[in-house]
């Protein structure tokens, strides 16, 4: 397989894609031209405006098909690959027991006004997700699931009280980038509340996060849709109870 590919409609290299959008203009010939203009700006050539429908007097909906000229260079794809070994519950427990020599403490919840707990529960509750048990199931992990709509000050407070090793936060509502704002606030608050060396690991998750943005948002790791508890547990072990301690101590608290 080549490293450079194009979208595939029914023939290798045809570059075909489907597109739909609304323009805030009435439906007429000009509107169809405007739709074609946008499609061309997106790289479709030719762009076939195959459907246009007035939605009231001020908006028009379009469906466009066409070939894009862009090439996808697979060598340039950046993927947040799993950079830690995937462990089973037994291995996780054993690692914590032998290396950390105390339970690993996790505090979790949905911050801000977000009340979508199904995702964080999938990671934390015994019931788990996709056939894997959640972190509560791990004998060596102590889980404090604070549930929905936890305020950031409360979260900081509980992390302090419980001497949390890691704080796990879920954000599902993304309208107006709510998840990004909240995550930035979260990391700012923890940076303010803890000296770098004692700050718990900050892990956020939710279906619409871009996993590359961890650094930009000031957190240690982002988990996207379909995450399983085992991945999270393995990551926590890797960061908090690593096989060989990390070269630079980073921001791990003294245990």
């Amino acid at each position: 397989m080549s490293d450079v590919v194009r979208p595939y409609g029914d023939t290798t290299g045809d570059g075909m894609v489907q597109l739909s959008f609304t323009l805030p203009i009435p439906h007429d010939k000009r509107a169809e031209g405007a739709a074609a203009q946008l499609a061309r700006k997106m790289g479709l050539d030719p762009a076939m405006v195959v459907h246009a429908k007035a939605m009231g007097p001020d908006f028009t909906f379009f469906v466009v098909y066409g070939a894009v000229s862009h090439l996808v260079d697979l060598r340039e794809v950046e993927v947040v690959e799993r950079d830690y070994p995937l462990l089973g519950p037994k291995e996780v427990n054993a690692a914590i027991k032998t290396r950390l020599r105390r339970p690993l403490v996790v505090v979790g919840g949905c911050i801000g006004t977000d009340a979508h707990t199904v995702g964080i529960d999938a990671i934390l509750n015994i019931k788990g997700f996709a056939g894997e048990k959640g972190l509560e199931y791990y004998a060596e992990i102590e889980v404090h699931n604070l549930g929905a709509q936890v305020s950031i000050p409360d979260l900081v407070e509980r992390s302090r009280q419980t001497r949390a090793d890691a704080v796990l936060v879920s954000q599902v509502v993304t309208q107006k980038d709510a998840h990004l704002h909240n995550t930035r606030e979260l990391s700012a608050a923890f940076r303010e509340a803890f000296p770098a060396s004692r700050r718990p690991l900050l892990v956020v998750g939710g279906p619409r996060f871009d996993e590359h943005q961890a650094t930009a948002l000031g957190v240690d790791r982002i988990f996207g849709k379909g995450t399983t508890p085992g991945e999270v547990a393995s990551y926590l072990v890797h960061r908090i109870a690593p096989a060989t301690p990390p070269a630079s101590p980073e921001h791990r608290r003294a245990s």
Partner: protein
Amino acid sequence: MSRIPTAAQQLALDPATVRRARALARKVGGPVVRIAKAHTTVSVERATLRLAGLAGADVEGIPWANRLVDVVRDQVGLEHGVALPVWDAMARSGDDLTVLAQKAAAGSVTFRVPDAGAARTAARRARSAVAQGFRRIDRNRRTREKLIGRYGDPPTPWVYLIVATGDIYEDIPQAQAAAREGADVIAVIRSTGQSLLDYVPEGATREGYAGTYATQENFRLMRAALDDTSKELRRYVRLTNYASGLCMPEIATLAGLERLDMMLNDSMYGILFRDINPIRTFVDQRFSRAVHARAGIIINTGEDNYLTTADAVEAAHTVTVSQLLNEYFAKEAGLADWQLGLGHAFEVDPELPDSFRLELAHALLARALFPDAPLKWMPPTKHMTGDVFRGYLLDAFFNLAGELTGQGILLVGMMTEAVVTPWLSDRDLALQNVRYVRNAAGNLREDFRPAPDGFIATRARAVLGEAVELLERIAADRGNAPLLTAIGDGTFGLMKRPADAGRGLDGVVRKAPGYLNPALDLLAEGATR
């Protein structure tokens, strides 16, 4: 054309079992009503003031109703209600309600619980002031009835669409566009987090997340815009919002005052999904339902929510139990059958064999149990994915189930359910879906005859059986409010909510013997003065 058998006939439900289910709901709900009657809450008291015309907020946006109730509570407590101290103070100072609130907030009013003649005066004046609010609500109800009389009511299921931009000024054109494309009901979704605010924001708002704040002004703006559209379309377009969360009674009141037509209002949603204290919820709920009854507002209950966390097959009977409880509480508060938009949803895992027939079974069961209620039928959400084509398909079968089982209110599903709050085009496409299904296959109901011994009827009877069992298990508790015990034990939606915890508990007050609330009186009497 042959007559369509009723849902109960189609399912061959045993009338004795149905009666038993209702009796159990009453048995379980009764003690909770007694508790609700014995308490008031800050929001009930604020709602009373709002009925009397108190509006507006201080510079920080805290409503005068909150400021006033807080001061009264600080000074004399709320166990006698806010009416006596407030109208007593007004009688003494001659201030009007707003001025009094402002002065109280500034710390320059001293309240007392009046007695004897002063109490009678205060009570009389309070009643007369609050009655004005009810007269406005009554007028709104008559206006609605007149408009519906003029335009006629749309056929069921009514097409119910949401707008959720967070900005009332984006919501309005989107709502109007949706109405033009065929929506019978527009719901303005609330901003995340509003349910946990212990005050109702003021004014027109543009900054909600995934929804728009419920405010009196937003209600007014949207109702006025939809009135315009109704006129244009010669079809009365209903408006919906949420009487839930910590301000349920006030929002119910504002809905009545601004002629909203439907309100989301569930007896347990706030408890389970917002961790609001159970007592607070039941007290607030009883007040708000009485207001809805008066205002001719249809409530929508929230059983669909259970199925977003629990499995729709395993937990099907919890939906039925909740519907029975919602019905009991609603009727106790004065609502009529036609006002009961009992909720349920199309949430069976589409990968399950016969999933569509399971949906039909569940939907027919609700139809059979509540033949006169305009059931609110909610679309697939949990099993929606980013595959918008598949989403459009599931929504079509949801629409078909709605037609085949005679649902009353069809909350139109969006293909982008798992992606974003609905776009303008999502709504347009969704309505096209509804229209096609209804026009092409709506009458298929005549050809749909589940056999009494068939898969569908058998499943429906099984769910009813499980519901009765669950109610029996709850009723078997020997405590003085078995339902509260059950809620505390995690019976519903797997959430444990003890009666002595949860948000808003500090806003609950046990009534003293002299407690007075003219709103409750006017509601109970159906009086206008």
